[in-house]
C-alpha cells in the first residue's frame, strides 16, 4: 500500500509518502488512521483531530468506513484551499 500526506499533515508526520504491506487486521480507512496514529508522535499529532482530515483512495474522496486493499493508493490531507 502507498500512503501520501499533504500540507500540514505532511509537515507534522515528516514524510510525504511511504509504502508498506497493509496489516491483515486493517480493514477500513478508520482502522488505518488508528494504526498510523500509533506509529509515532508525528503521526499522533497529525491525526489528533481526524474529523478535519480528508481521505482519498485511488484519487477518489472516501468516507472513513471505506474498505481498503493492499493495492490501494491512500492519501490523507486537510480540507482543500485551491482556486
Amino acid at each position, binding site marked *: 500500500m502507498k500512503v*501520501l500526506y499533504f*500540507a500540514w499533515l505532511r509537515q507534522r508526520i515528516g514524510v510525504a509518502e511511504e509504502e508498506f504491506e497493509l496489516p491483515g487486521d486493517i480493514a477500513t480507512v478508520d482502522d488505518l488512521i488508528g494504526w498510523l496514529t500509533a506509529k509515532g508522535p508525528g503521526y499522533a499529532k497529525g491525526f489528533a483531530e481526524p474529523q478535519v482530515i480528508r481521505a482519498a483512495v485511488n*484519487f477518489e474522496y472516501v468516507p472513513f468506513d471505506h474498505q481498503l486493499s493492499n493495492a490501494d493508493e491512500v492519501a490523507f490531507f*486537510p480540507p*482543500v484551499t*485551491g*482556486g
Partner: protein
Amino acid sequence: MIKVQQENFDVAAELATLTAGNHAIGGVVSFVGLVRDMVRVDDRDAALRAMSLEHYPGMTEKKLAEIEAKATERWPLEASLIIHRYGRLEPGEQIVLVACASAHRQAAFDACNYLMDWLKTEAPFWKLEETEAGEAWVESRASDDVAAARWQIKPDRAAE
C-alpha cells in the same frame, strides 16, 4: 481542457486557442484568480510575501476533468478550460484560469462560476502563506462549501 502547471499562462493566447475556428461561440466568460498582497493572520491583516501551492499530482487532474465534464453535461458549452498553477507565487501573480465558451452568455457565466466553486471545494490544492508573522496554511472556508452546494439545486428542465 485541463492544465496543471508551475509556469505562468497567457490569458489572451489561451482564450484565442479555446475559441479558434469555432464561430458558434457567442460568448466567453473567464475567471482569473490572482495572489492578493494582504491576508488575514490571527484576525489581523498581514502583508503577504509569497504563497506556495501544493497539490496531489494525478488526483488534481482527475478531479478537474470530472468537474469540467459535469459542467459540460449541464450547460451547452462549445469549449472549456481550467489552468491551475502550483509552486511559489508572489502577490499579483496569476493562480488559476477558468474559461467557458458557449453560444449563450448565461450558460457561459453559470458554467464558469460553477467550475470555480467546485474547484475550490474538490481540487486537491493547499495554500501556504508567507507573511512577516511566518508561514501558515490557509484554512478552508465554510462559505466555499455553501457556494458549491447551491449548484446541487438543479433548475427545472422542460425537456426532462
